[in-house]
């Protein structure tokens, strides 16, 4: 059997980040990517939080082909016939930018090229069919009829774990821990984007939507401004969709939402250019599998490293970080000549010491919280109703502002259900 | 004097080129020569004259049998020299396209193949052809002393052409070919000539299985049309590669094209975009084919096509 030092399965951000670190340190590394190019099979919402990862490979992020730095954050609560938007424009978030909108086909292709420049071999159009196991140890991969051995395999195959599960490295994905994300990429001229979201030239906006988008199911809508397009999409929990989605086909959520009078003007004049979908791991830390073992490490979505904290949705920064730490751990193992679980154990230690597992630990309760039924129906409507009351001047005498506000708060927020939610929310 | 020279192994196409060539030639102060080559070429001479050729160079030299590109290119180069040709218009059939590069090389000429529009702009030829897999139309000029354009059949019409003298010239040609014809046999299932077909029924992936294509054939029969297909059907070996219409197949300009179960990917539609009339039958109202169709039926082809056949029989 032919053999290389390191095989990386999956040329996405986790795999490429690992390969970049490995190749940069002189290790022999081969990345196998099933798409025509890196990014061809990937979908993001998409925004990448760069602040957490700026310290890794600092030379990269200055020249990365990002779309727009996010200078404006918007959250829109969609009620019935009314919606409320909170908008934040902060100099501190924009300079230096803490996050950028991205298009994976561009970003991943570029990173693949960087790996190549470091001496790594990236093979696109090469699907891996099996992780080879021998005496409990991962010893290589099979692609078609070819078996290639490796000291270590970085399993960065993505969320579906079609390789990791049969090899016994991780569980089969289940609906409760996953969401479906899908989107349209809608082309709009840069000037129109900047006018529509009040942006300075080159700057971007991120807008999240809660409420009627998902018809009460766990999830929401998102909108990110790219250079000359916007990504407009929906995330919906698979379990919720399966249980409550019978009345509407998943793809129609986006169509109906897009037709709402509050959304229509945002996409007016745009041309839909691509339609894409992907599964998202949302099980949180409780569902993160064992991250390493004899001859392998798991990274990125395959390891379940993503975090939906309602107002911030992260995954790509975790993917890049896990790839980085995987590379560091593998280099240490290489030096020691020990690619067993013991030799690779520093991977998990590093992740535990870093934001990756710390943030996931902090968010341990989020998946549970996200299942609260009121979150996606009652509150978005109630918020708009409260502000409607506050802004209403009716035909008769108008109550005082505080009176109006209190009335709304008592009506929609001070009852047993919401108090229970608040009790849970204190842990967020 | 200088001439514009036209040639196609297909007489009808050559006549189209002669007719339009005569207009160009008049604008440029050139004469019109036509070449008729190969077995039975002499018979075409009167037609070429009627279509606008002043002179018709005829050769039935045995080396030209089967139109080997090397010998035909040699013949045309010698005729071009004799006629003082500065412009050569060829038919962009398979044989014509194969010939174009070889002839252009002999003449030291630039060439444009698969031309679907040729115009004079300020005394200069501008030729249009598809580029980027059919996504765009490139308009090209040729800068060499002699220009070669291979033009898709039916781009021009010779209806109502003003005739030329049609003087037959039998040139003394030095010809040889390395190509030996071992066998030529007629195709089983009859001829398929998409290039010059007046009516075409295009079939695509809307047909669920190979057997269902019979419905497309039936429609074609009712329309007296030829069946062509998308590349994917040929890839699936439901039809032969010679039935492909589009980028990797025939570029056609029929009077009528009916796309059945064809979504309208540009790789296919590039082959029918010059049709005079485009009709489409597709169950998906938003299929791109409707954006380029004159008439469309939104519906299940398995219901619609039999109904159309029925109706056609009544006409």
């Amino acid at each position: 059997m032919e053999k290389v030092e390191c095989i990386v399965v999956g040329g996405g951000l986790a795999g490429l980040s690992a390969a970049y670190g490995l190749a940069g340190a002189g290790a022999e590394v081969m990345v196998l990517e099933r798409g025509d190019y890196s990014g061809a099979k990937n979908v993001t919402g998409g925004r990448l939080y760069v602040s957490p990862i700026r310290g890794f490979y600092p030379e990269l992020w200055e020249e990365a082909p990002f779309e727009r730095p996010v200078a404006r954050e918007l959250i829109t609560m969609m009620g019935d016939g009314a919606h409320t938007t909170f908008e934040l424009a902060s100099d501190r978030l924009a300079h230096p930018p803490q996050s950028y909108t991205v298009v994976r086909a561009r970003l991943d292709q570029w990173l693949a090229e960087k790996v190549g420049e470091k001496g790594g071999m990236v093979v696109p159009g090469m699907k891996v069919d099996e992780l080879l196991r021998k005496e409990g140890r991962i010893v290589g991969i099979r692609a078609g009829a070819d078996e290639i051995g490796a000291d270590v395999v970085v399993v960065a195959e993505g969320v579906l774990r079609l390789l990791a599960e049969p090899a016994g490295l991780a569980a089969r994905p289940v609906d409760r821990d996953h969401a479906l994300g899908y989107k349209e990429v809608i082309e709009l001229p840069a000037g129109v984007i900047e006018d529509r979201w009040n942006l300075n030239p080159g700057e971007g906006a991120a807008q999240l939507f809660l409420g009627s988008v998902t018809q009460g199911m766990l999830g929401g809508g998102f909108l990110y401004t790219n250079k000359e397009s916007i990504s407009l999409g929906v995330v919906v929990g698979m379990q919720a969709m399966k249980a409550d989605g019978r009345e509407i086909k998943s793809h129609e959520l986006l169509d109906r939402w897009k037709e709402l009078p509050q959304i229509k003007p945002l996409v007016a004049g745009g041309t839909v250019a691509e339609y894409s979908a992907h599964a998202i791991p949302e099980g949180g830390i409780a569902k993160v599998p064992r991250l390493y073992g004899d001859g392998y490490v798991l990274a990125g979505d395959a390891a379940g490293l993503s975090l939906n904290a309602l107002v911030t949705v992260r995954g790509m920064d975790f993917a890049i970080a896990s790839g980085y730490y995987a590379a560091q751990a593998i280099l240490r193992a290489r030096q020691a000549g020990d690619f067993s679980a013991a030799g690779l154990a520093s991977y998990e230690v590093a992740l535990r010491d870093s934001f990756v597992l710390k943030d996931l630990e902090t968010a341990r309760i989020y998946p549970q919280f996200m299942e609260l039924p009121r979150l996606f129906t009652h509150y978005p409507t109630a918020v708009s109703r409260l502000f409607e009351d506050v802004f209403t001047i009716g035909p008769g005498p108008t109550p005082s502002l505080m009176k109006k506000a209190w009335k709304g708060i008592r009506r929609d927020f001070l009852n047993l259900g919401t108090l229970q939610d608040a009790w849970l929310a204190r842990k967020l | 004097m200088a001439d514009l020279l036209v040639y196609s192994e297909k007489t009808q196409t050559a006549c189209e080129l002669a007719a339009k060539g005569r207009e160009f030639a008049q604008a440029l102060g050139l004469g019109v020569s036509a070449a008729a080559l190969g077995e039975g070429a002499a018979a075409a001479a009167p037609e070429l004259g009627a279509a606008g050729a002043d002179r018709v160079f005829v050769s039935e030299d045995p080396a030209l049998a089967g139109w080997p590109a090397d010998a035909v290119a040699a013949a045309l180069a010698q005729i071009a020299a004799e006629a003082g040709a500065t412009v050569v218009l060829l038919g962009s059939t398979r044989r014509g396209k194969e010939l174009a590069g070889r002839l252009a090389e002999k003449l030291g000429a630039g060439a444009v193949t698969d031309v679907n529009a040729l115009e004079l702009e300020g005394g200069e030829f501008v030729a249009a052809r598809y580029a980027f897999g059919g996504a765009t139309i490139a308009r090209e000029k040729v800068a060499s002393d002699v220009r070669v354009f291979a033009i898709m059949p039916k781009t021009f019409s010779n209806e109502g052409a003003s005739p030329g003298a049609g003087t037959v010239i039998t040139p003394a040609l030095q010809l040889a070919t390395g190509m030996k014809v071992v066998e030529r046999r007629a195709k089983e299932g009859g001829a398929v000539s998409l290039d010059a077909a007046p009516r075409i029924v295009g079939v695509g992936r809307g047909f669920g299985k190979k057997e269902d294509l019979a419905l497309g054939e039936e429609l074609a029969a009712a329309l007296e049309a030829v069946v062509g297909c998308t590349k994917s059907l040929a890839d699936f070996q439901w039809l032969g590669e010679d039935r492909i219409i589009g980028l990797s197949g025939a570029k056609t300009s029929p009077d009528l094209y009916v796309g059945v179960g064809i979504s309208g990917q540009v790789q296919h539609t590039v082959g029918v975009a010059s049709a005079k009339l485009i009709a489409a039958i597709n169950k998906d109202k938003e299929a791109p084919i409707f954006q380029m169709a004159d008439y469309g039926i939104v519906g299940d082809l398995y219901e619609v096509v039999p109904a159309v056949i029925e109706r056609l029989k009544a006409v």
Partner: protein
Amino acid sequence: MDIVVCVKTNPDPQMVRIRNREPVLEAVPYKLGDLDKNALEAAIQVRDAVGGKVVAVTVAETNRKIKETVKEALAMGADEAVIVDDPAAMTLDQAAVATVIAAAVKKLPACDLLLFGEGSSDNYTGQVPSRVAEKLGVPQVGYARKVEAAEGAVRCERSMDEMIETLELPLPAAVTVVSEINEPRIPSLMHIMKAGSKPTQVWTLADIGVDAAALAPKQEVVSNLAEEQDRKHVLFEGAAAEQAAAFVDALVKEGVVGR
């Protein structure tokens, strides 16, 4: 038998989008042309049948894209590759490309059979094979769907309009192939890994004795825009029988049927 396959790196035409009538080429991957793969497969099969070697020849500016294209050819099974590197190569017209390829083929120690795809995936002009054949003074057959080579000759079958032709050419000869000829193999990982160590030569124009002045363009692209369609856009909806009636009536009125 020494077989030369001429290949070209193309922007993947399926990936080219149109925006405001302009083709968007940014981030479009480049790859070996589809028909080039058929030609390579045919060459490999001939080599495997009669022995010899397959050399892939391309003309391009040496960059990552072309290296990957050449590697793809080597991974499929070509034995060697030659890249003629010229900074202007991406903008050469068909006559210039043919000039370079013909000169490169002459520099090769031997060439019995030249194989080409019938056209490139992007522009499909089909000119280069014929021009190269003319430059080299060899006979040619286009559109082959079967190629068999024996000592001193190549026999091809092709389908032209109403005829199936079987043709024979003495070697050296040039043949272009259509997609029907074979199903190009998808290189295995092992072959891709080994492709890197197969010999690849990079020649300059000087190496093959071509003067850059001989490559002056003979053609000029004036514009390249998506087409604007002017069609009637009449849609018939309703029951099949009514649709059919309205449809056929429209065709009759247009004079394309019933005359």
